[in-house]
């Protein structure tokens, strides 16, 4: 384990009956990095996070937190981790300030320190106006903010967020994203989500799993540069349907998406595509308006990996996260 790693998962495997929910997944999270943990619903993200946190025991593999093998009795390590579950729930009879003070009581025995920190978190997450209300009346977004606040009570070095923006309205989502951006550099974050635009906007690294298997693990910048040009756009004045039909049979075409008079084409062989697309345009006598390559969006990478090459790990980008 490298010295600046806060978390290392080695060969994590979890089975529920015949279903292998997580299948030999390994990754590392380094201090101060923000890791987007993405995958379709049911991919095994929450199961993986629960194993990291000690809420589930792996059937195989091991988790190291801050250099120590994970153990629920290791309170010193637990004190350095914050966690927000996908559906945070709290004792409904409590008010937010007293809940935060209760959580703070696990980190410090000094009542004044706890109260001060709880008030700071109330302010940080905009909970002051809710101070007089019981949690039972909180909206989804308000509970999410309280969830974030409780996770920060112990000033964690590793923050684990499970789907923090799901179910939130645009404003709530914006607030959570903004907060995560502010946290960058102060703590390592591992954020599970299926909202890829969020990941693309704020994450340093991407860890992608599908059907329990890791399919991608790399810095976001590396993903983009590695695959730059794999998506080509060709725009013609007319006859785009004929062109699409002609290109669809080419062996190097992975997917074609029409966009008006343009086609977005995912290709496996950029050189062949660069030769044959203009040739096809000329053969049909079409007027070429635009022909360019661009970096693929994370969504396109995600779709190509989960649809086209299911389960096949990208060896060229292994071990880069964090």
């Amino acid at each position, binding site marked *: 384990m490298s010295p600046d790693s806060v978390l290392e998962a080695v060969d994590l495997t979890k089975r529920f009956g015949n279903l292998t929910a997580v299948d030999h997944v390994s990754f590392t999270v380094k201090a101060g990095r923000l890791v987007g943990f993405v995958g379709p619903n049911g991919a095994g993200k929450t199961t993986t996070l*629960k194993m990291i*946190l*000690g*809420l589930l025991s792996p059937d195989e593999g091991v988790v190291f937190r801050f250099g120590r093998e994970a153990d*629920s*009795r290791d*309170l*010193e390590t*637990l*004190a350095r*981790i914050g*966690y*927000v*579950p*996908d*559906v*945070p*729930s*709290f*004792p409904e*009879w*409590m008010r937010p300030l007293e809940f935060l003070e*209760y*959580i703070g*009581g*696990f*980190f410090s025995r000094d009542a004044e320190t706890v109260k001060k920190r709880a008030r700071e978190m109330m302010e940080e997450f905009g909970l002051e106006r809710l101070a007089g209300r019981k949690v039972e009346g909180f909206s989804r977004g308000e509970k999410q903010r309280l*969830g974030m606040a*409780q996770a920060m009570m*112990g000033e964690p070095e590793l923050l684990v967020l499970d789907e923090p923006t799901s179910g939130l309205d645009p404003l709530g989502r914006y607030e959570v994203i903004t907060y995560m951006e502010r946290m960058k550099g102060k703590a390592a974050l591992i954020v599970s989500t299926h909202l890829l635009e969020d990941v693309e906007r704020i994450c340093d690294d991407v860890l992608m799993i599908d059907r329990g298997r890791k399919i991608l693990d790399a810095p976001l910048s590396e993903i983009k540069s590695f695959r730059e040009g794999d998506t080509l756009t060709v725009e013609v004045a007319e006859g785009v349907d004929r062109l699409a039909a002609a290109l669809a049979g080419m062996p190097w075409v992975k997917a074609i998406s029409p966009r008006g008079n343009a086609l977005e084409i995912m290709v496996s062989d950029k050189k062949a595509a660069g030769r044959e697309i203009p040739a096809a345009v000329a053969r049909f006598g079409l007027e070429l308006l635009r022909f360019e390559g661009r970096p693929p969006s994370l969504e396109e990478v995600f779709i190509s990996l989960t649809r086209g090459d299911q389960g096949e790990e990208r060896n060229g980008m292994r071990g880069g996260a964090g």
Partner: protein
Amino acid sequence: MRNQFRKDLLEMVRTYRGYVLVGAFVIFGVLSPVTMKVLPKILPESEEFQIVFKDTTALSAATQYFDNVAQVVSLIVVILSAGAVAGKRSTGFFQILLTKPVRRGEIVASAFAAHALLILVGLVAGHAVFALYTEWLFGGLSFWGLLASLAACAAALWLLLALTVFLGVVTRRAGLAGVLSFLGFFALSLLLGLLPLPWEVAPAALFSASSGVVAGRDGIVVLVPGMITATVVASALLAASMRLFERN
């Protein structure tokens, strides 16, 4: 431990469960002697039938009170404590709690301690009003007998609580834990009855034996074997619950 215990205690007060428990003790503390006093007078008589009451005494009132504690209040204890651990395990809050720097055994211990304290408060309140009304209506109660019966009932109910918590940890289902613990408490006493031991060692015997002690008929010593059994078994169950919860 103190932080978690404080929260568990506060939860019982804020969710009114504490009031229900203490209220049940107080209601039966008042009703038992009053019923014994006025029942012979309020029951109708007719030419077809006649109910003959022996003279009702402090012993009658005590028997009625401890029967109510054994049958009704203990059921309330089980219902209120069945979800102490089992019902919360699957909640999102428990997931948050288990990732905090708190020993998992302490979560079980503090849930037990909060409920145990509330049972004690209920018993003290129930015994106090029972003693007040019985002394007023009949007289002849033993002060030391009252204190001994308080300890005996606490030991029996704490055993029932420990059994409920233990079964909650094992079964992970509040309803199932409640049913099994109520049956298990009396099954334990029946099992002990099969052994060549005096009936007094059975925890369930603590309720019936308490009435004679309170009324001054029997000595405090009859409560000792049952209290020892209850304390030993409750301690073992609590330790096992903490250990199992740590492992889970």
